């Protein structure tokens, strides 16, 4: 169950996939500030993530880790500073074009509770424009084939997270942003997630993992950064 092989690494350091040219480093944040409403969340954040890297992101509760992920996912704009993700300026409309290459699994599931696990994936496949039969395969790959008709709202948190991992397997992503990927997952699912993270990096993508579990992350990450006082150290 790998469709990410369509991403071919070129010698120049930039590689071409479906429709976007991805430029290395995949993530560059230069003195970025983020405000949400009237609250200052991030200040003067600098970060560079290259293709093939796995980066751990630590920080205490409310430090702005989730906001940092949403920033890198192009979902919020920097209030100040410059940032590019997959070559797209975070403040310019070109960021919309790279979104399909960014996978994010937040700590609150983005599944629709009224839809079954399979229907959730089929919806994702339809919107992303990938063949719809991939949904079934992806669900089987995360060990949920037998539960495919169960409504997301009636499934456990862990099952919903597995479904979201299935979504990321199904769609060809260059950058994966994971918020607490180990929470609510059992032993097998953790192995699955770590396998996915390592494979994504080996394929020339990058992964940023937010976690409180430093030992786990340090075991797989190439390096880690910490959010303190709204800035990275």
């Amino acid at each position, binding site marked *: 169950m790998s469709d990410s092989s369509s991403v071919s690494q070129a010698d120049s350091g930039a590689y071409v996939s479906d429709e976007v040219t991805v430029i290395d480093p995949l993530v560059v944040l230069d003195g970025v500030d983020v405000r949400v*409403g009237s609250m200052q969340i991030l200040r003067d954040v600098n970060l560079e993530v290259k293709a093939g890297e796995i980066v751990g992101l630590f920080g205490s509760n*409310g430090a702005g880790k989730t906001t940092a992920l949403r920033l890198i996912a192009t979902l919020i704009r920097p209030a100040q500073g410059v940032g590019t993700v997959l070559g797209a300026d975070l403040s310019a409309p070109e960021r919309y074009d790279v979104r399909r290459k960014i996978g994010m699994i937040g700590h609150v599931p983005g599944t629709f509770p009224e839809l079954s696990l399979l229907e959730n994936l089929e919806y994702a496949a339809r919107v992303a424009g990938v063949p719809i039969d991939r949904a079934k395969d992806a669900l089987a790959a995360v060990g949920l084939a037998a539960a495919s008709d169960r409504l997301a709202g009636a499934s456990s948190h862990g099952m919903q997270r597995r479904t979201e991992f299935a979504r990321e397997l199904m769609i060809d992503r260059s950058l994966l942003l994971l918020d607490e990927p180990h929470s609510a997952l059992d032993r097998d699912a953790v192995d699955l997630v770590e396998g996915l993270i390592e494979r994504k990096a080996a394929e020339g993508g990058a992964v940023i993992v937010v976690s409180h579990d430093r030992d786990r992350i340090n075991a797989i990450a190439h390096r880690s950064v910490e959010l303190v006082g709204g800035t990275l150290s």
Partner: protein
Amino acid sequence: MNVQTRIRRWPWVAIVLAITVAFVLSMVSPKDDVQGELVRIMYIHVPAAWLAYVAFFVTFLGSLTYLLTKNLKWDRIAAASAEIGVFFTGLTLALGMIWGKSTWGVWWTWDARLTLTAIMFFVYLGYLALRRTTDDPISRASRASVLGVLGAVQIPIVHFSVVWWRTLHQPPSLVRPDGPAIQESLMLVALIVGVLAFTVVYVSAMVKRIELIHLEDRRIEIEHSIDRPVAGDSVVVPELGAKT
């Protein structure tokens, strides 16, 4: 008095001057043959209605320009104008009702203009209510601007619908809310001066209100630029688990 103080005071001077002249003229103008002294309500009612339309048109222009330029200045103009517009629409409706009650014996008549004014009042009341729901200036500006454009684009359609509707159902002639016929040139002069005076009030209020909104935004900006702790700093190590 230095130049700056003088500039800051001109709106007040202009308002007082304009209103005084308009008031005197409206009082010395003759009374109406049919309506008597009541006709003097017209000198406020008509200018207020005129200004309400001008104000909402400015809100539309401000909203549209904001959507095209993303410059917050235009959103401030739209917001200030909508506030003043809602005030003048409310004034128009209240005076119209008082006028109607004393002239025709009813508070309300389903005249096209009256109905349209009432609808506009609610559209822009909604606009102001929407602005209260968001703190973030950029998010607020985008949302309010879309509503500012939608509201304004719908108004001509609402206008036509109400006019056609009234043409089909003429109200009883007793309650036809036509204004008094302007019989004397002094009445016309008083009305025109009234409109001008209210326009001065509008422009002055706009200048003040935009300045105020700008200052509010500046205050937030300054608060951000000084080294204020970020939101995450409000979470500290729990004392129970802390090492002593």
